[in-house]
């Protein structure tokens, strides 16, 4: 490191705004890309990133981090953990890599938006490191799964998924494209770094790392916890933007950006991370339930951060807290039932022991979700696998692009929140999903969900095989039950013993 303490020269690295005269300020920072919202350049210069790093520090620290993560991988390669890991854990990795790796790379584009267009010089510099970070996360999370492509065609989806119209890929893109690729620099700093990265990546990367360690997958654990150390740094770009917006009369808009991003992130996590944590991860390796992770990282910690910054908890906070008990169970049931439509093998996670755990963590589970799984289990144990497989497609929310779910059982409560806009009827999975649409109908109005495409004849033949072809899923890629129904057979054995 250079001799003179960083504090003495750091400010010079971010004294880089000037007054242009060969072009206008509006040309140099177009509002649609910069999002300065009328706040003067001089005010943006007060932006003070809480986590400061300089170039020589960055390359040194990052070189060391990579050396650590790559050497763990190299050392454990021969151990071939993947060949003896529980199939549920393999599915966890496949779902994670497919949904995350290429989107992390895409996040480098969003970081570059800030690096070019933010009027805050500190933001521009930090976003250069953020761009590099996301380049790292894309690359490292492609390199690791690539070692497994020889094992199974589903591993190819670590790279392939985002290039397809597979429904979960559409849902992931719909979220990330909305909050990071199609936003101005300041909105990116709030919707991607503050809202999404502060809360949700913590949960995905630290929560999953805890499970990975428990499961003995030290390669994955070291990889994703290393990724999270970068996220923890560059996630701090949003806080100073929020402070500036709030201090300059834009609290309402700032709050709205946060609320949209958190809701949409929650819905994506309810289908991606919820099933992983509560169903795919082998029971003995689950460190906490999905709900417990959500309560710790989002409801408690993130709410505190919002309040510290002078924002409020989102208006739907009560609904979200309530949904922590239900939504992801419905998503999981849907993903398992429609298993040929995903690139991983969903683990049912519904063995007698699993169900006991679920009942403990989610009292009432057996009376609701359990009743669906009872029927599935019976069918499987009576050689009627055909009844556990889909013939049609589910109804899909026009915001989250995910199935519209409710809680089964006596209180069956599925509800379609509809909206008629410009003569078209839209369907939403919740009040908050509909609210997200209503905040900017123009942005969303033309988008067609997978079901809209199906009904308008874009998917041919108009049946499930046609839809699978549209989604890019061939035999050997389509999901099957991860454990070949061994969990259901366990009930048969139980019955015999009784």
């Amino acid at each position, binding site marked *: 490191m250079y001799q003179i303490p960083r504090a003495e020269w750091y400010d010079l690295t971010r004294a880089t705004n000037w007054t242009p005269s060969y072009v206008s300020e509006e040309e140099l920072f177009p509002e649609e890309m910069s999002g300065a919202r009328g706040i003067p350049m001089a005010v943006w210069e007060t932006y003070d990133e809480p986590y400061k790093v300089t170039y020589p520090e960055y390359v040194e620290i990052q070189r060391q981090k990579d050396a650590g993560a790559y050497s763990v991988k190299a050392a454990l390669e021969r151990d071939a953990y993947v060949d003896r890991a529980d199939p549920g854990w393999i599915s966890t990795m496949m779902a994670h890599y497919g949904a995350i790796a290429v989107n992390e790379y895409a996040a*480098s584009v969003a970081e570059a938006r800030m690096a070019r267009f933010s009027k805050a010089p500190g933001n*521009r510099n930090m*976003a*250069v490191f953020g761009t590099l970070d996301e380049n790292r996360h894309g*690359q490292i999370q492609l*390199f690791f799964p690539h070692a497994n492509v020889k094992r199974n065609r589903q591993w190819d989806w670590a790279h392939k998924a985002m290039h397809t119209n597979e429904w979960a890929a559409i849902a992931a893109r719909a979220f990330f494209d909305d909050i990071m*690729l*199609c936003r101005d620099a300041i909105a990116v700093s709030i919707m991607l770094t503050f809202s999404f990265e502060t809360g949700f990546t913590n949960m995905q990367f630290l929560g999953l790392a805890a499970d990975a360690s428990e499961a003995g997958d030290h390669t994955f654990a070291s990889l994703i916890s290393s990724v999270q150390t970068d996220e923890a740094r560059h996630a701090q770009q949003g806080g100073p933007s929020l402070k500036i917006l709030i201090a300059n009369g834009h609290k309402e808009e700032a709050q709205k950006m946060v609320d949209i991003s958190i809701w949409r992130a929650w819905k994506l996590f309810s289908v991606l991370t919820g099933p992983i944590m509560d169903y795919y991860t082998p029971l003995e390796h689950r460190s906490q339930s999905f709900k417990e992770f959500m309560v710790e990282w989002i409801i408690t910690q993130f709410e505190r951060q919002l309040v510290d910054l002078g924002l409020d908890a989102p208006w739907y906070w009560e609904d979200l807290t309530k949904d922590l008990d239900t939504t992801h169970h419905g998503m999981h049931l849907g993903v398992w039932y429609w298993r040929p439509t995903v690139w991983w093998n969903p683990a049912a996670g519904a063995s007698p022991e699993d169900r006991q755990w679920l009942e403990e963590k989610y009292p009432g589970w057996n009376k609701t979700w359990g009743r669906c799984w009872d029927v599935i289990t019976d069918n499987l144990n009576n050689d009627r696998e055909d009844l556990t497989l889909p013939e049609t497609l589910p109804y899909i929310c026009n915001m989250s692009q995910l199935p519209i779910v409710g809680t089964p059982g006596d209180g069956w409560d599925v509800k379609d929140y509809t909206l008629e806009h410009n003569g078209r009827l839209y369907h939403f999975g919740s009040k908050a999903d509909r609210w997200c649409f209503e905040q900017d109908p123009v942005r969303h*109005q033309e*988008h067609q969900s997978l079901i809209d495409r199906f009904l308008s004849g874009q998917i041919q033949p108009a049946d499930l095989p046609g839809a699978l072809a549209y989604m890019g899923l061939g035999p050997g890629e389509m999901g099957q039950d991860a454990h070949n129904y061994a969990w259901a057979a366990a009930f048969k054995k139980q019955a015999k013993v009784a």
Partner: protein
Amino acid sequence: MSDSQTDTLKPLKTWSHLSKQRKRPSEYEVVSTNLHFHTNNPDKPFEVGRDAKMNDWYIKYRNNSPLKHQGWDAFRDPEQLIYRTYNILQEGQEAYVTGLLDQFSERGNDQMISKQWAQELNRLYAPTRYLYHALQMGASYLHQMSPASTISNLATYQAGDHLRWLTHTAYRTCELAKTWDGIGLGENERNHWENDAAWQGFRELAEKALITWDWAEATIVFDVILKPAVSAAVQKQLGLAGAENADTLLSLLNDAQLRDAERHQRQTKALIDFALTNTDNAPIIQAWVDKWQPLADKAINAYCAALTDLPDAAEEARAYAAAVRQSFGLK
């Protein structure tokens, strides 16, 4: 749902999109290729409604660029740089620079230069942080607009390099001010950058380059026109002037940065060679060069006129920039 074993897709040795190539893919190819899913649908880049405005920006300035190629994704960086190797490379380069800074600090470099040279540095060196920052912003734009991940990645690491140069300048400005207090170091750079005649050519070119939205034209303006001019005048000629004025540190520091610049030039050459595999592109690129080159010459002339110790500076700098263009096969 049947799952016939005969139809089951077999595992491959690499990603399906790379499996048809004969050569075994390198680590670089495994982690760098075909990552921009938003180039798949040319009419609607993003998974939002068509009316979301960002679609228009990418359709207009990326998808509908006059520079066409049927498969930008086939471009490969000749340096095969990836994140992991970039940090290894630059940690080493920074260790070298740290060594330089330490040695010259111990030797009393800043005490041995003249006050006049310190004032020259205040005027002609310290403001480079604005110029380098403009390059950093430009590279960040190219990253987000390039039509293939392998092209974006060139800009990713180049943006890092420009922040590196800016950091050197900021550090040296602070260090020089400790010896040469009261001459405006750390205070007057913005004024010089905005008003001093020496800088106005570069500022004009940088500002106009920064609002060149077409990705391909912006690539030409930054990588063929502006950056070689910066290397020629501000890194090379200023470094030589430093050597003339007992400021060996400056010339060595600038040389260290030129290693980055030369890498950028090798990458640019490969990109232009690749673009020229479509012969329709040649006149388009040359027209952009012709349109922008006068501004670069003007910038070089204005800056080098201030290097009074080096009467041939402008001529040499223009020759350097011309040689770089020729190495790209351009006039």
